[in-house]
């Protein structure tokens, strides 16, 4: 089985937000929640970079480790998913996540928060693949259809890569070799405890 990862090639990201829009539309993500967002660092200054970020589906995921009800599980493709039926909306995953991925539909409502929502790597949830229940709670399950996450598929500059970690790392390495520069795989060290040597 593959070990699925995201890789954002910051030197190609043009902050077009197509990934953000694709995600919101594909999964009918509720208002106020963004499973993916593009962050621009040093905006307007020399050396500005934009990075598209969502749940990185960490190795030994912190969210899963701190969850008081153990609602997270890791699929055979190493995608970190959770059950909204088990989630109690306590907010612990959101304190532990290095990437700000977990979000709640009812922030500030006496702490009731509602069920946590985050990027599913377009892999749905514990319900039957492609079922109506799964779609309503987690959005589309593209992985079950043999497709990769839509954010990466729709990336206008092919900056955002999704797929097996080794393959996308290889693609990135080749790019860096060919063009002679690369600012690295953002978030990889934090998420996967490894970087891509270039």
């Amino acid at each position: 089985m593959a070990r699925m990862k995201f890789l954002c090639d910051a030197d190609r990201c043009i902050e077009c937000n197509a990934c953000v829009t694709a995600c919101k539309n594909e999964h009918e993500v509720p208002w106020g929640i963004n499973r993916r967002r593009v962050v621009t660092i040093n905006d307007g200054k020399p050396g500005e970079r934009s990075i598209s970020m969502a749940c990185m589906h960490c190795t030994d995921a912190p969210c899963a480790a701190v969850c008081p009800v153990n609602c997270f599980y890791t699929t055979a493709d190493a995608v970190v998913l959770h059950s909204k039926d088990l989630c109690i909306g306590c907010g612990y995953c959101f304190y532990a996540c290095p990437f700000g991925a977990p979000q709640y539909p009812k922030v500030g409502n006496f702490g009731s928060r509602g069920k946590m929502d985050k990027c599913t790597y377009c892999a749905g949830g514990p319900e039957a693949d492609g079922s109506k229940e799964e779609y309503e709670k987690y959005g589309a399950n593209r992985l079950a259809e043999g497709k990769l996450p839509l954010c990466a598929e729709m990336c206008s500059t092919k900056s955002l890569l999704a797929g097996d970690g080794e393959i996308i790392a290889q693609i990135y390495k080749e790019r860096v070799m060919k063009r002679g520069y690369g600012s690295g795989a953002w978030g990889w060290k934090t998420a996967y405890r490894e970087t891509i040597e270039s």
Partner: protein
Amino acid sequence: MASFGRFIRLAFGAWALLLLVTAVPASAQQVNPTASAVKEQQLLQELNRIQGRVSIPDQRSGVLEQPQGREWREFRNVTLPWIGGIAILGMTAAIVIFYLTVGMVRLEAGRSGRTIVRFNAFERFVHWLTATCFIVLAISGLNITFGRPLLLPLIGFEAFSEWSQWAKYAHNYLSFPFTIGVVLIFLMWIGGNIPSKVDIEWAKRGGGLIGHDHPPAYRFNGGQKMIYWIVVIGGGLVAASGYALMFPFYGTGIEGMQMAQIVHSIVAVLFVAAMIGHIYIGTIGMEGAFEAMGSGEVDVNWAREHHSLWLDEQKAQTGPNDGQPRPATAAAE
């Protein structure tokens, strides 16, 4: 015509050559757009977090990366269970050993049959309001830390999640009456709980816990004053840190909430340990003590043995030959 054509070709060739010669140094000089670009590791080392601008309305999502959640995870999964386990099990073990070796603190003079009012109805109401809230808050709170390893394997995912959901609601909503209770306790009993010289003497004699010693005390002895300040300060801290967690991003960011959770949980487990001691001494630990918060009236002999100076005060107010002691008035009502 031919010479003109040759001239044109020559001129064009010379121009092309010139272009090439000037272009060579430019292309040989490697263009590296990342030379001045922001570097992830450098940014993380500087601030331990990376923040930027986002164009979506949720400005909080501008924080790209904050790996310090790892330290919080270590606290939540390893440090806290140890602190809580040692504090709560340690206190319970100490009490069991104390009870088995020393046993209940008896009324040495027996019961006189005459009682004196120690806590009026309002005081008892506030005490039990706070106490019942505390017990629910303690159980539902401990469930967050210890439920997953201890209870979940016993009852399964669905049942545990259902229970935890209700426990969380109870925890959030009972925090309000609990906080009111703590505030009322603070105001109502502050008068009798200012530490004084009597408490030093009381503490030196170990509170009379062992043997047949009865160090003098006013309305509240050194131990009760300790409980009072644990409730006021501990209760204040858990309330403040708890509300920071209940209302995310009102004045705190993620680090603030991690800190709030750390303060909340450490104070809470120590608070629970202290209250186990308080419950013990107020029930099976001391003969005649429960009545103070039960009916509100204690035996005069109990008052003489444990709160001699307070009894003298009460007697002075009511007169030496008054058989029916007047109800004690609350200190700060």
